């Protein structure tokens, strides 16, 4: 099947010799599905928690007490304070790398939620601060500045609370995309880590001054318990689980292979690799323990499904860190955290799938292909023929798993790719498009463009799965 007028070279029937001496994997009936149920449960828990956070205010406030402006201001300040306290806990929990969250939500969704919740949290904190300062100033007939001074001097834990608010403003501002691009990654990262400090510094004033929290009782106990749970999740997800994983599997670099001039594959070996609960398409956060790289952790997808003997990640060399990976020596120890992500065959909603890869975005899709039921389709966008990675493997998989593969080579503005990446073009390649799950992985621009085309072609949103490069 060749598509006219494009650079798509049609389905390849590659060499029949399996890559790396591996026999073509027997076709498993498909990995067990992990539908969206877990995700829905988590979002239900989130909303219930939000209600539970504000409920004490609702119950403790007598009706009719909000007849004047001062009462309204302080009440609104109190509500936003409770919401902010809750959202801060949610924010930290989402960053705890808890397996239950990462398996159900996936990194992509977590980071998107983290950004949205973060923006809301910042606004809630500022609203809380402004409303209460103005409210208290009116009540005590103070000037605004005088009231801030009074809060800082006469109230317990307010200095640290103001510092916490300052940290949150700083973190929030540097998270704005335009600002963040201009900052060195390390500065941004370290500033972001100080938000744990905000959790600590903001803690005190809630209990010494909070209208709903300073009195001993179920509400106060509940909040303290929530704090403890979040800290426990943090310790568990960030320390204990990775420690156990790495002590158990002891990963080491086995080999570094160049796939193209600017892409490398890193092969890893370790103990008990067959016991890792791994799905094709998932990623780990990697830390290569050599002198130059040990303090940097980066998420890279595995580019081969679990086989019990080795793991492989395929990385495009773009920055300083990835350039150093090129010089990794066999035997280097590797600290890994994972596997995470919902970009897997198990999360599909339909039987068949269409995969769209851009450049080195092929890595997770390549791994996933091994676990998808036969009949999948793959569209591989690459700028030049040299950018087509893992060519032989894809051809071998295409044959072994009855997958149609199209290579669409050329720049974004070439007529061929433009035609293919349009609703009509996609529909012509894959007529049953709307009845398939679509997995997209590649640079942000390509993913956005493809999502637009898919939506216009009538693919429901829940059938589209994304993995963008941008964190």
């Amino acid at each position, binding site marked *: 099947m060749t598509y006219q007028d494009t650079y798509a070279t049609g389905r390849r029937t590659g060499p029949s010799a399996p890559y790396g001496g591996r026999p073509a994997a027997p076709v498993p009936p498909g990995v067990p599905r992990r539908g969206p149920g877990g995700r829905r449960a988590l979002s239900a828990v989130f909303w219930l928690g939000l209600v539970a956070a*504000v409920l004490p*205010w*609702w119950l*403790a*406030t*007598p*009706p*009719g*007490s*909000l*007849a*004047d*402006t*001062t*009462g*309204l201001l*302080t*009440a*609104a300040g109190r*509500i*936003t304070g409770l*919401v902010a306290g809750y959202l801060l806990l949610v924010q930290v929990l989402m960053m705890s790398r808890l397996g239950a969250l990462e398996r159900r939500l996936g990194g992509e969704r977590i980071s*998107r939620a983290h*950004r*949205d*919740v*973060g*923006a*809301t949290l910042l*606004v*809630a904190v500022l*609203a809380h601060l402004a409303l209460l300062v103005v*409210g*208290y100033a*009116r*009540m*005590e*007939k103070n000037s605004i500045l005088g009231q801030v001074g009074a809060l800082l001097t*006469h*109230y*317990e834990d307010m200095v640290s609370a103001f510092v916490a608010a300052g940290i949150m403003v700083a973190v929030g501002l540097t998270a704005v995309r335009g600002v963040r691009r201009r900052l060195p990654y390390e500065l941004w990262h370290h500033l972001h880590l100080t938000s744990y400090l905000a959790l600590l510094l903001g803690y005190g004033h809630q209990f*010494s*001054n*909070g*209208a709903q929290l*300073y009195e001993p009782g179920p509400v106060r106990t509940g909040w303290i318990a929530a704090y403890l749970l979040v800290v426990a999740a943090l310790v568990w997800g960030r320390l204990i689980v990775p420690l156990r994983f790495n002590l158990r599997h002891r990963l080491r670099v086995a080999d570094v292979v160049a796939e193209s001039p600017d892409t490398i594959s890193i092969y890893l070996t370790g103990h008990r690799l067959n016991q890792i609960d791994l799905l094709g398409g998932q990623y780990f956060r990697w830390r290569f323990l050599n002198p130059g790289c040990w303090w940097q952790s980066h998420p890279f997808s595995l580019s081969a499904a679990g086989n019990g003997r080795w793991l492989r990640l395929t990385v495009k060399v773009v920055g300083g860190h990835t350039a150093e990976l090129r010089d990794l020596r066999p035997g280097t120890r590797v600290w890994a955290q994972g596997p995470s992500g919902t970009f897997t065959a198990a999360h599909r909603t339909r039987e068949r799938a269409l995969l769209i890869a851009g450049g080195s975005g092929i890595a997770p899709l390549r791994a996933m292909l091994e676990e998808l039921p036969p009949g999948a389709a793959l569209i591989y966008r690459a700028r030049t023929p040299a950018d087509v990675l893992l060519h032989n493997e894809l051809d071998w998989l295409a044959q072994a798993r009855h997958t149609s593969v199209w290579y669409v080579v050329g720049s974004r503005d070439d007529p061929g790719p433009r035609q293919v990446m349009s609703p009509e073009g996609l529909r012509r390649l894959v007529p049953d498009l709307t009845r398939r799950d679509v997995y997209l992985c590649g640079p942000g621009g390509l993913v956005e463009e493809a999502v637009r085309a898919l939506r216009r072609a009538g693919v429901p949103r829940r059938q589209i799965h994304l993995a963008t490069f941008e964190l």
Partner: protein
Amino acid sequence: MRRALLAITGLAAGTTALVVLKGAPGTSQAAQDRPVAEAPVVPGGSAAPGPAPGGVTPSARPGASAKPSAKAGASRAPGTRTSATTRVTTRATTAAPRTTTSAPKVTTRTVTGPVVSYRYGSLQVRITLSGSRIVDATGLGMPLDGQSGLRSDDVQARYSGSSGEVVAKQSANLNTVSGATYTSTAYKQSLQAALDKA
């Protein structure tokens, strides 16, 4: 970003909705007035029709007559303050029949002092008298949260109640609560005025 904007809008709308719903006068006023409205009936029927309703009704809603700041203080007096109100009135009602049977001349009444503004808010003191003896006292409209709330609680705990310092000393000559000088002073001031009135 669109979702973040949506969430922020939701936050603003939610907060406003909560405050407006809570502050809606229809449900609230009825709920708060009920104990007050019922209160005068019993003492009025038993012994003193004049002073009891006159004393109780304005005092139960200090904000209505007082400055907005006092009202704000009262507004943050949720469960505790309302229960204080009910506690006093019910005590008055239960005490009333008993006094009528044993000593018909002794009446129970409440007297409320003026609103006194001080550094951390404002308050007024209401005392319950049985004859000329103070049997109970309570501070109304005191700040409920923050450090001023804690100070208020200290003062309230030391002075108020049927076993508090006011009842023990039967005068406004109270010991200042340490760490709560302003609140103590305001309390004594309002109490003295209430005693003068009684």
